[in-house]
């Protein structure tokens, strides 16, 4: 790698003028992005998680802001793969950039089943396999921490699609390098490092958590050094590209993650506050590097 890292790059055989991907669950299925016309500077969009059956998601409140970050407990709310395939994906075809579908499941087989159904669409360039959602009882974090399960999920997906896929790993326990290696062994064409960190806020006056599932997914720009460390460790261990996810709020954060070994860099929480985050990050990066 050369430094400063190049902003333009190749990923899964495509040319990207921007390394910025919009993270799963913070960009919907693209409809609102198209409405707001906030796709300038966006390298790729990752859909929110799709599961086999429709999921209502968790009972509100689903969000809680702490002084330095955000707790979310969405619970993979989505209308199910059939509705996504028939009613939502056609509109996503209008996106001016590559589109990835984030896939979740409650059992090892469900991931492949969902992918298999989505194969009928040609809108997306590939998948992100989410074995790491901290906000569901089944198929979430517990899957991601076990390399054996990661391997089987990846193998299952490999069998039903020729499109590239990334496995999105968890920072919540286990050994992320081992899970990344298992994903690659199972046929993953990338790994996403990483999903949200398990966090919690308790009201000391009552001892209660506002979030009903008690623990939730925590995001914060202050987590950047944790993500940098994991991206660096994983990208030194595996041969496939690493997609970073977490901690980005400034152009220099993206550059730092690229320097740490990320091939593409996702932005989530910042996008929720700044619909034009990708374009703003690109401007900042270009100013910093002169590229």
């Amino acid at each position, binding site marked *: 790698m050369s430094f400063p890292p190049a902003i333009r790059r190749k990923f899964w055989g495509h040319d990207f003028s921007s390394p910025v991907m919009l993270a799963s669950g913070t960009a919907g299925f693209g409809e609102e992005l198209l409405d707001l016309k906030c796709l300038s500077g966006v390298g790729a969009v990752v859909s929110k998680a799709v599961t086999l059956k429709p999921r209502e998601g968790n009972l509100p409140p*689903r969000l809680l802001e702490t002084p330095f970050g955000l707790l979310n407990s969405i619970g993979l709310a989505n209308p199910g793969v059939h509705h996504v395939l028939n009613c939502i994906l056609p509109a996503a075809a209008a996106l001016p950039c590559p589109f990835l579908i984030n896939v979740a499941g409650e059992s090892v087989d469900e991931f492949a089943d969902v992918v298999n159904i989505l194969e009928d669409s040609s809108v997306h360039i590939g998948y992100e396999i989410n074995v790491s959602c901290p906000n569901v009882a089944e198929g979430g974090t517990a899957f991601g921490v076990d390399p054996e399960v990661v391997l089987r999920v990846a193998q299952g997906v490999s069998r039903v699609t020729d499109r590239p896929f990334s496995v999105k790993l968890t920072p919540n326990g286990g050994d992320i390098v081992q899970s990344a290696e298992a994903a690659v062994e199972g046929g993953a064409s990338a790994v996403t490092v990483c999903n949200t960190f398990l966090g919690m806020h308790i009201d000391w006056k009552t001892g209660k958590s506002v979030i009903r599932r008690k623990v939730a997914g925590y995001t914060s720009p202050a987590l950047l050094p944790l993500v940098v460390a994991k991206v660096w460790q994983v990208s030194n261990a595996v041969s496939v590209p690493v997609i970073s996810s977490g901690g980005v709020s400034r152009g220099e954060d993206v550059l730092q993650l690229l320097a740490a070994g990320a091939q593409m860099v996702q932005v989530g929480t910042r996008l929720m506050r700044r*619909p034009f985050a990708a374009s703003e990050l690109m401007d900042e990066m270009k100013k910093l590097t002169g590229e």
Partner: protein
Amino acid sequence: MTVPRDFDCVVKHREQVLCGVVKTVFDCAEIASHALPGQFVQIEPSPDVFPVTRRPITINRLTGNGFELLFDVVGSGTELMAQMRPGDTVRVLGPLGRGWAIDPGSSWLLIGGGLGAAGFQFLMNSVDSVTVLIGASGSDRVVPLDSCRVITEDGSAGEKGLVTALISEELLDGADSIAVCGPVAMMEAVWNTIPEKHRRKVQVSTESRMGCGWGVCDGCSIPVSGGGYKKCCREGPVFPGVEIDWKRWKEAGL
């Protein structure tokens, strides 16, 4: 639906009104010319990285060249917003959401609780015939409106009691549309007071903790009848009362 946009708005005026409530006027011709009653804006409390999300505030009324907000100082975000002074530039995304569904020529009954009446002036200016009922804890919490009937819990302004006491069969009969906005418990009490046959006329303006405010995060779900959720920020904040699953909404205890 108008497309919301992200603007750097200049604060024109700032005033402490009522108890713990701040009125802030922003210049922004574009938001002013597109906004509809019941819509809201997403305010960036600080240009700093924290807080990581914005704060949703209903457009209280339009001014010549911009719009006015009325907000309660309840936490760190609104505290930062209370410090905004004339001349400051603030990032504002808007106008957002679906406001009140207004049939031309319809007559309206507005029922507000506390700061929930913020936004009523805008609605009043946009309909031909309107009666307004306002409930508040005390006189220092009554949102100023052109004309309204007031009731307060401590009797310090208007009658003494809860807003549900002002609702009469006659008022309900006379209205084509009924707008309700206030704390969830107040809205539920109003809903329960309104007889079945009038409920189809009711629209309620909901609130939820918001992440994005523009529909991408699914954080602002409101439970709807028949199961499932709708997004407060995009499919709301105003919903037909019959669409709300009042039981689950109360259970959520937002």
